[in-house]
């Protein structure tokens, strides 16, 4: 019912400042879609256009079979949760929850029942007679969530709803929101969610699919797993994953990757996947996919700094003037020997090669990447 479709969506501010460059995206009914990207990449602008709070410069937005470009927010079957909660400061929690229903002129009994139901789901019954300023951040966020929930919308829109909370609360609210979505789905309501965040952890843990954005363009739309294992370009590769993927600039020469004076044989695992052999290439290696080896094909690097994290160690090493970060098990680290020159072998199955000229991942050919 409430799928969302963006067609060549564009936004120009003040007639000059183009911030959204032709977005096209299909969000399925009941899907949890996360928009993620660095600050200023127009996530909020896009979300606000879906909500109807921002005028659409060009393109179409379709929600549940209906073109909504010219509909007011209240007619779009949407509800929105704002970053700063945006609770009405002079109304009690009860009043905040029921405002929309009261504006719509619903009968009193129905409103009271709806408020009670939502309050029970979000465990905010004891707060119903408080003013927003008497709530903690987490409580206020739950009330804001309740205000969206009570409308029983087709589409939930979230704009960085957790970024004002402390880390612990954020983690628990993350779970609460995804649980709620699953619960609503199980009840057959199947609301679609569009969730904006700049936090990749939120994106990876919450989204059915993730839309990675940069500067008003979509970089990749994929499931969290696919995004991690098969980033379509350099931007996504560098954005998703902690610590960040190592992106080593070099060149492809006859199936080998050349960086400085070193030559790394790629083996058939990787070269079979390559759709082209760019002269100027960037090799992408996740820190977790290095292993310390004594012989065989590997990158030689000088250990600069090691961070002990408990069961694993983050090694910062210098390879031909480039910083390489690798994560190895603590035992493996202890067994490396005395020398501060280490040999790091990347797992060829999970290596990525990017064309430096356009940032495209050229190693996705055949799509046979091991998870």
């Amino acid at each position, binding site marked *: 019912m409430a799928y969302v479709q963006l067609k060549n969506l564009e936004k120009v501010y003040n007639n000059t400042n183009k911030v959204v460059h032709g977005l096209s995206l299909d969000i399925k009914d009941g899907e949890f879609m996360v928009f993620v990207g660095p600050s200023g990449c127009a996530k909020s602008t896009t979300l606000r256009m879906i909500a109807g709070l921002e005028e659409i410069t060009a393109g179409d937005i379709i929600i549940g079979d209906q073109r909504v470009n010219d509909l007011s927010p209240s007619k779009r079957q949407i509800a929105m949760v704002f970053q700063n909660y945006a609770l*009405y400061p002079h109304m009690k929690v009860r009043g905040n929850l029921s*405002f929309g229903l009261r504006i719509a002129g619903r009968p009193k009994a129905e409103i009271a029942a709806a408020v009670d139901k939502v309050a029970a789901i979000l465990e905010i019954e004891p707060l119903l007679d408080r003013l927003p300023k008497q709530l903690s951040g987490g409580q206020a966020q739950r009330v804001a969530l309740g205000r969206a929930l009570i409308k029983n919308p087709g589409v939930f829109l979230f704009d960085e709803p957790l970024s004002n909370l402390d880390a612990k609360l954020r983690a628990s609210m993350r779970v609460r929101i995804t649980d709620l979505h699953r619960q609503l789905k199980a009840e057959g309501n199947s609301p679609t969610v569009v969730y904006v965040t700049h936090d990749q952890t939120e994106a990876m843990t919450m989204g059915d699919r993730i839309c990675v954005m940069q500067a008003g363009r979509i970089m990749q739309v994929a499931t969290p797993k696919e995004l991690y294992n098969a980033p379509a370009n350099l931007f996504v590769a560098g954005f998703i994953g902690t610590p960040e993927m190592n992106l080593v600039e070099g060149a492809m020469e006859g199936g080998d990757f050349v960086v400085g004076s070193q030559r790394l044989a790629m083996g058939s695992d990787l070269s079979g996947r390559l759709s082209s052999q760019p002269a100027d290439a960037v090799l992408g290696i996740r820190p977790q996919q290095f292993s310390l080896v004594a012989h065989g094909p590997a990158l030689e690097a000088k250990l600069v700094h090691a961070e002990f994290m408990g069961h694993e160690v983050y090694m910062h090493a210098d390879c031909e003037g480039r910083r390489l970060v690798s994560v190895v098990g603590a035992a493996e680290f202890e067994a490396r020997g005395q020398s501060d020159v280490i040999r790091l072998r990347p797992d060829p199955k999970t290596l990525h090669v990017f064309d430096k000229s356009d940032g495209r991942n050229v190693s996705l050919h055949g799509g046979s990447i091991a998870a």
Partner: protein
Amino acid sequence: MTDISLAKTSARTLDEAAAAKRARMHLISSVVRYALLFGVGFLMLYPLIWLVGASFKTNSEIFSGAGFLPQSPTVEGYVQGWQTSTPYTFGRFFWNSFLIILPKVIGTAISCTMVAYAFARFEFPFKKILFGSVIAVLLLPNVVTRIPQYILFRDLGWLDSFLPLWVPSALAGDAFFVFMLVQFLRSLPTDMEEAARVDGANSLQTLVFIVVPMLGPALVSVCLFQFMWTMNDFLGPLIYISSVDKYPVSLALKLSIDTTEAFEWNRILAMSVLTITPALVVFFAAQRYFIEGISAGGRKG
């Protein structure tokens, strides 16, 4: 053991001595500061105190000294002043003032809120030019418009009625209030209004249910300013009101000076005290909101 406890004791007494000294200094500085404040405050308030005191004196006593305590307090000034030298009591003039102030204050609050809301939250053609003219009006000296205004109201047949005194203000004619509310609104986040729109409220409902409550302190300030300025306005009524039965208190006070050959100062002073009482009462009743409103108006968002 003994040595240590001795050392401890002496250290403690040293500490205590220092603390006591600090407390004493603190006390002295407080006394000095408060004495100074009281002194200056008293000086500032003296005319007002004298006014109240003198209103209970007899006419002859008023000029006999600068002291404010009446020797034989009497309410004669109030009784006779209230009667006035006209066929009307002072109550009539208060009622007239009220008839001007009530529509003016209510009209100002409503009209200025709507105009400010439009300027602060909507895009419309010529907005910049229109807002520029609001500021221009703000900077325009009042005297410049006196004569054209008078001619306009004469042609409308509004002379010797209350209309010229409140209608312009009730139609957002006071640029200062519009400007003040616009500044206040700009400092408020728009999230709540957007949430209300998503909740299905139209612009008017958003204004009434969301914006006006948040605007509360600023609106209290607007009403207070308008109340006090209208209460004190002398020139407006002087120009437009000619019949005595329509005089507001500001004019009526002057009346008692005009018509009596030997000025009955105690009556004038007594009526002056009554005249400033409503303003004082309203001010102190609304003081908290008032101050909040003024200071919040200057806050940047």
